[in-house]
């Protein structure tokens, strides 16, 4: 059941991304391009997604455990550290260049006639792998 719900949640997520227009980098860039012909549609995507998730999470986290697992896999709220800031800057640059973020990039691998995302996802995999090699600030200070 766990594996089945992983697939179904992914499927609904992918449907949502496509319906919302997130799988159109042109629409995403039209939102980011505030000095061009600005398209605010993404605000409504984020607004309704965060709204639903906020209400549901509040309710779900009052349960003792999830349906198919023994605990919720949610880390404690962390601090805003240098790694978060540097990572978010790099992500913002990458997102602003092409209009692809990880979800839509991977979701579009199944769309026919679009070789763009194969190139993007190759870079995405390489970059994600590289991130594992990044020195960990906390581990370093912990050792000395």
């Amino acid at each position: 059941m766990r594996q089945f719900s992983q697939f179904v949640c992914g499927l609904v997520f992918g449907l949502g991304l496509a319906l919302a227009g997130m799988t159109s980098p042109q629409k995403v860039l039209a939102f980011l391009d505030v000095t061009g012909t600005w398209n605010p549609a993404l605000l409504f995507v984020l607004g309704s997604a965060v709204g639903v998730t906020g209400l549901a999470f509040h309710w779900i986290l009052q349960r003792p455990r999830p349906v198919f697992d023994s605990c919720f896999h949610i880390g404690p709220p962390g601090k805003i550290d240098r790694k978060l800031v540097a990572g978010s800057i790099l992500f913002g640059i990458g997102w602003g260049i092409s209009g692809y973020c990880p979800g839509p990039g991977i979701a579009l691998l199944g769309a026919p006639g679009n070789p763009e995302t194969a190139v993007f996802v190759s870079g995405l995999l390489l970059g994600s792998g590289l991130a594992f090699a990044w020195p960990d600030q906390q581990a370093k200070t912990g050792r000395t």
Partner: protein
Amino acid sequence: MALADFLPAAGGGLLIGAAASGLLLLNGRIAGVSGILRGFLAEHGTAFRERVLFLLGLIAGSALYALFSGQYPVPRSAFPAWLLALSGLLVGLGTGLAKGCTSGHGVCGLARLSRRSFGAVGIFLGTAVLTTYLVRHWWGIY
């Protein structure tokens, strides 16, 4: 903005929210695509298979939508491939370091009122707006 733009945007957000809520309720997991991708690269066994199934669902969902709506995403003709590859590399490295992207920090993190996520979203949105401006209006690449 026309109603024809607003309704699918809000409806799509609703489905994204339902999927993220469903994943937490059923499996106790955060639906952050970059996090699932990191798991895909680093995990083995059952955890690996679960990540693969979510990613396959993601691909199937977008393909289903294209099939039923008849709207296929159109690739840009003049966008340089090396720039796409660089963009992917930066997105992968950045979301790896920040431990989250538009779904993990942007949807699930904001919904949890996480300070880290508010910080991340503010920074990556600001940087993306600036980058889009430079690439389009200084560099002239669309």
